[in-house]
Structure formats: C-alpha cells, structure tokens
C-alpha cells in the first residue's frame, strides 16, 4: 500500500443551529476552507468521500447527490459513508484506502450534519425529535419499540462496565473534573460550539440528571450543525502540496476498525455489556499497523459522546488500565492545558485528551465529528511539534462501531 498524508483541513464554526445556512452551504464552506488551507483548487481533487450520518437530519435521501456540484466535485467519483457516530472515522478510512490503493492521488473527505432543523410539535422544541431521529438507529422489531435513546444505549455500556469494574467511572468528582478540563480546552478552539462557556466541576455536579448515576446534563455531547473537510494525498502529491503551503504533512501511519455484533449476549460473537470491545480492537489494529504502542502517544482526539464513556474508551485504547480509568484525574495523566499553553508538549506520562474541547465542548456534527477531531489533532501536533497522535470514533447502538487512526508528523517532532 502507498503512503498517505493529510495536507489540508478546514471546518465551519460549530453551532447549535445554523439558520444562516443549509447543509449545502455548510459543506461548501468546509470545502472552501479545506482547499484554501491546502492552497488547492477543485481541479486537483480526484475524488470525494462524504461523511453524512442520517438522511432524516438532512431531510433528503442521498443528500450527497445535491452536494456534488455545489462543492465543485461534478463529474468526479463520490462515495458516501454512513456508519452512525463513527461516520467521520469510516469516511476518513475510505479516503485513506482510496489513496493507499492507488485509485486516487488526492481525495477530499468532507463530513457534516444539519441536525437541529428537526422539530417536535408537542414540546415545541427540537431536542425530543433529534433524539427520536437518532433512536431510529435501533431496529424496528425488538429495540426501537422499547423506547431507548442514544444516551440510554451508551449508559447501558457504562452500567455494564460499572457492574464488572466498580469504583471507577462512578465517582462524579472525577467525571466533573474531566469536564472542567475539557471546557478550558474548548475555550481555546475558535470554532468550538461552547467556546465562550465556563463550566466548573461544581456546576457539572449540580447539573440535572439525564440518567443516574453516570450522566448529568453537563456530561453529554452537543447536538451540532457544521461541516469539516480534509485532503488525503499520495506521498508525491502530499510533498508537492506541503511545499506549496509550508505546512508539514501528517502521515496516516495506522488504521484500525472493528464493529461488534448488534446483539448483546454471553459468549460466542455477542457483544459483552461491560466492555467497548470495538474501541479496543480498533486501537490494537491501528497500533499494530503503525508499529507503535499506546505509551508512544501523548495526544488523542477521541469521540467523547459522554464523559463516563470517554473514561472507558481511554482504558480500551490502552492509555490507562481498564477498571482504573480514574487515574486520568487521580494521577494527573490527563494533561492540564493551563500548563501547556498553545505550544508546549505534555510531560512524560501525561496525555492531551481532546484539546479541541471534544464533542462535549467543541461540537458533534455527526457525519464530520471525527474530521473535526482530525482538524484539531493536526493543528495541535504541528503547533506543539508532537510526533504521534491518535483519532478515535465510536458509534451505533451500544457503542458497537469503533475506529482508530494513528498519525505521524512528517519528519517527527523537532
């Protein structure tokens, strides 16, 4: 397989709702910024990969069809990827494969979502309808009729984990501390949805319950409208573009993915309720391909749908022991942005987790959230001169979809 580099990235502002733009404009805005960042024109792009989670949100079946011409990709091949919450990751994986295989020299990978045009007539608010739309991710025979939400699904994982590994994610002080630290990080992200908010650990613990005992209102990700784009290029093309822009290449060093079975159960291939096996397998595969260990990596942009899940995921990714993920806070493993400022690297033994503010403070435009993570990771790796970084995506009911991508700064850290 050929070497593949990321040479451009651009995102829109993350907003709770964009009344000023439809998904057409949001996608074009992301593409304009991405091409601008790479100093490229649409002529130089061989093909496009779209990350769009849900037709119902966009209110169009095959929404990528109406986007093709608008984003300058007419008469080029285009593939739409949709894999639940992990859509962004799987779109990047597809873009990577297209270049690695030699099919294309340059691929535009663009993802986004217009989620909050949905509206619930009875409560006269958007949220219950957004939740209902996501709840359609369940099958119509056995699960959807029971009425669970995406939050229930991820909390089911957390409860199963807590059954097997008590005294870890259950400490609300630890979770609240992580939220406070991520808030400070989100404040530094000019595109973050909640960049102007100050949320303290005390406020997190005083916020209303969504599902006891692992999810309060301030521990959940956002519903976001926005879009983000990336340019994946072959080694030759990447070097040419990098010379043009003066920005170093971020090489894709390892890609791993795993989707667990939909049905939870005991033994065989069934999804265990106390672990996020998809995360673990995805990370192991990405590390093996990259020839690295978790301990080699000090910056990660992971898919934090909920803080308790973030903790479990950090365990599954191998950064802290499963069952003792509270070490992130107890032992200061999560680096404090106040000590790092804009250009320092974390100390040995520390990890930067979601410098973007994550999906909780940055935003979660589902089809492109993991591109948003990659945009941030690239920015931070270049600014802080960090050699290795990791992206993680999770999705679908009971967190059964997982993806991980290890990337490397060209020439290593200086």
């Amino acid at each position, binding site marked *: 397989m050929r070497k593949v580099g990321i040479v451009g990235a651009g995102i829109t502002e993350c907003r709770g709702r964009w009344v000023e733009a439809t998904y057409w404009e949001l996608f074009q805005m992301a593409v304009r910024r991405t091409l601008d960042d790479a100093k490229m024109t649409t002529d130089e792009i061989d093909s496009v990969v779209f990350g769009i989670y849900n037709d119902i949100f966009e209110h169009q079946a095959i929404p990528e069809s109406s986007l093709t011409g608008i984003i300058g990709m007419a008469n080029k091949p285009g593939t739409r990827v949709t894999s639940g919450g992990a859509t962004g990751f799987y779109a990047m994986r597809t873009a990577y494969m297209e270049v690695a295989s030699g099919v294309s020299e340059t691929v535009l990978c663009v993802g986004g979502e217009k989620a909050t045009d949905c509206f619930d007539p009875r409560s006269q608010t958007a949220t219950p309808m957004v939740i209902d739309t996501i709840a359609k991710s369940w099958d119509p025979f056995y699960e959807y009729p029971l009425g669970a939400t995406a939050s229930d699904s991820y909390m089911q994982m957390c*409860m199963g984990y807590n059954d097997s590994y008590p005294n870890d994610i259950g400490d609300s002080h630890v979770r609240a501390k992580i939220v406070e630290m991520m808030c400070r990080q989100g404040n530094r992200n000019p595109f973050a949805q909640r960049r102007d908010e100050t949320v303290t650990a005390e406020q997190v613990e005083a916020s209303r*319950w969504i599902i006891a005992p692992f999810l309060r209102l301030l521990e959940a990700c956002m519903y976001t409208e926005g879009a983000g784009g990336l340019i994946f290029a072959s080694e030759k093309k990447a070097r040419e573009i990098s010379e043009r822009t003066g920005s170093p290449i971020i090489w894709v060093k390892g890609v791993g993915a795993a989707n667990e079975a939909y049905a939870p*159960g005991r033994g065989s291939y069934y999804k265990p309720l106390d672990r996020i096996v998809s995360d673990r397998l995805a990370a192991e595969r990405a590390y093996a391909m990259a020839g690295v260990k978790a301990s080699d990596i000090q910056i990660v942009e992971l898919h934090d749908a909920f803080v308790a899940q973030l903790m479990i995921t950090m365990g599954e990714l191998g950064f802290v022991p499963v069952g003792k993920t509270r070490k992130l806070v107890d032992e200061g493993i999560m680096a404090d942005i106040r000590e790092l400022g804009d250009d320092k690297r974390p100390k040995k033994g520390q990890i930067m987790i979601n410098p973007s503010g994550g999906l909780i403070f940055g935003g979660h435009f589902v089809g492109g959230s993991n591109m948003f993570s990659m945009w941030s990771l690239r920015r931070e790796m270049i600014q802080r001169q960090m050699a290795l970084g990791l992206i993680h995506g999770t999705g679908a009911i009971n967190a059964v979809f997982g993806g991980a991508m290890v990337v490397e700064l060209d020439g290593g850290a200086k």
Partner: protein
Amino acid sequence: MNKDKQPALPLDFNLPKETTELKGLDGKTYLQFTSHMVTFYKQTYGEHSRFFLALRDGRLIGAECPKCKQVMVPAATWHCPSCNFVEMKEVNLPHRGVLAATAPITVFPSASFIGDAPFCRGYVDVARSAPAASFMPSRLQTLTGLPRPGIFVKGTELKLVFEKDRVGSIRDVFWVPASELTKEQLAKEPLLATELDFATPKAPDVKKDAKLTGVRDAAVAAMRKMAADVERSPRAQKDIAGRTHSVGVKTGGGDFTLHVSNGRMRIDDGIGDKVEFVMVAADPQVFSDWVADGSLTDGVVEGKIWLPNKESFAVLPILDRLPRSVRRDIKDAAR
C-alpha cells in the same frame, strides 16, 4: 381509517403548514418552512413472525444451533452465523431470566415516547443453560411504584409477564423481579399482567427519625417562603396556572401536603384524605434542595423520592419550574 384503532402517528404529532421568519446571528432575516419526512409502513415481521406469533400464544421461543448449541432470543436469524449458517431449531424458553447488566432508567425520552417516562429497559439472560446466548431486550417493571435505581441491577432474578391483549409486539411482554411475586405467580406460564396489581403499589415504609424533624421543618419553612414568593412572581403563577394538585408527602421527619391551585401554592402539615397521590422521601432535605434551585425530578432519578405512578411523575416538571421562576422575578423586581 378505522376509528376504533389508534393512529400509527398520533394526530397531534403535526405542525401547521407555514413559512416563518427568524433572525440569524448576523442580524439578517432568514426563512424556515415546516415539513416532515414521515413514511408509513406495513412492515413485515418476516422471519421474526414466528417469535411474535409465539408471544401471542403465551410462549417464549428462541433459536438453538444444533452444532454450537448457542441460543438466540429473540431469534435475529434462524441460521447460525457461527456455524456456517446451519439451520437452527426452535426451542421453548423458560419464563424466568436474570438481568444481564444493571439497566438505565429513561427519564427524558424521545418524541415518540413522551408520556411513558420514567421507564426501564434492559437485557435479560433467558437461555441460561446454553453455552452462549443473546440477551433479550426487554421492558422491566416493578410492582413497587416507578422504577428506581437499585431495583433492576445485574443478577436480578426476573419473571416474564404477558400483556392480556397481545398484538404481536415486543411490548406484549415485560419482566418483573421474581422477588415481588408469589410462588403461584412464579409458577404460572403465561403469567398475565392483569393478574398483578400495578395500580396501587404499596408505598415504602418510612421510619420516623427524630433527627430528621428539624430537616423536615426547615424544608416546610423554605417551601412556605417560596409559596409566599409565588404570590409576587408572575412567572411562577404562569407555571401553575390552571393546575390543581394536592400531593401528600411522607418523610422520615414528618408529613405534609403540597397544594397547588389558582396559580398559588400552599403547604399544610400532615396528609389529608383527599390527596391526589402520596410521595415518599425518607430524607426531607430533598425538598429544601428543590427550593434552592434544585429539582424534584432529580430526586426521583436518584431514587430519593418514591412515586406511585407515571401520572404523579408528570406533576414534578411543573413544580420544578417554580424555584427558578421565583428567583428570576425577584431578581427583576430588585432591578
């Protein structure tokens, strides 16, 4: 449409056809139009029909693999994915199971399930003698009032209960903790929901504790102060306009009754005969917390407040608005 049947889409689940203006962050005017993406289905249950037909007959069936002996319940397929898709055979399953993992309680449901909350669903291990098995996604109900933390925990022994009128839906059945049933009820197959009393759950006993009397008195004083503030708060009066509720409250520090009527609130000592329902909280502190901008709903979510039914739960979000409304109006008046 047949007038005897519920519509698939509730009739109030709709919006007027219109295009309206709204302001952007840039101060400019934008338009938005109401629309929908409703698709109706007459969706076949196909290979799942066997499972739902069995439920209608009062039986629980699964699919067993003749090679690896795993059991799938419900049968997502009748060909074992682990054994080269060998055909699986139908097996009758016991009406007893064990909760595979502690189950979350849904308090804020999606648009289609508003009114059902709070409810509990989880995964039940039914085919326990099989070397491997899927878990059955299930509704979980208790005879002791609304679901609360601590009832549906991992390992809870459960009994399958069938609705009397079964239509061919996963909602035709649910599970109840075995410890809440008699020997005879546990032995009966199928056990029908109509044979159980969900309507009049027994309130938990609350031990009167002298140490909590002061806490109760402080809570009542705080609520009476809030009731006085409601008199001066147009927002709070609007919150409870047109509503009449008399809620008895049993606590470890003594009882009281919370009245709401004509946009006013009143707290009486003791519990009268004509209360709408009685809620129970061992520790009365939860009511002081409510007045201090907290939430009674949170008290239910945490399991600090016991409620008999969903109807009583629906009253709490209305009461929860009062502290904030009062605070905002007092703040405005101070300006």
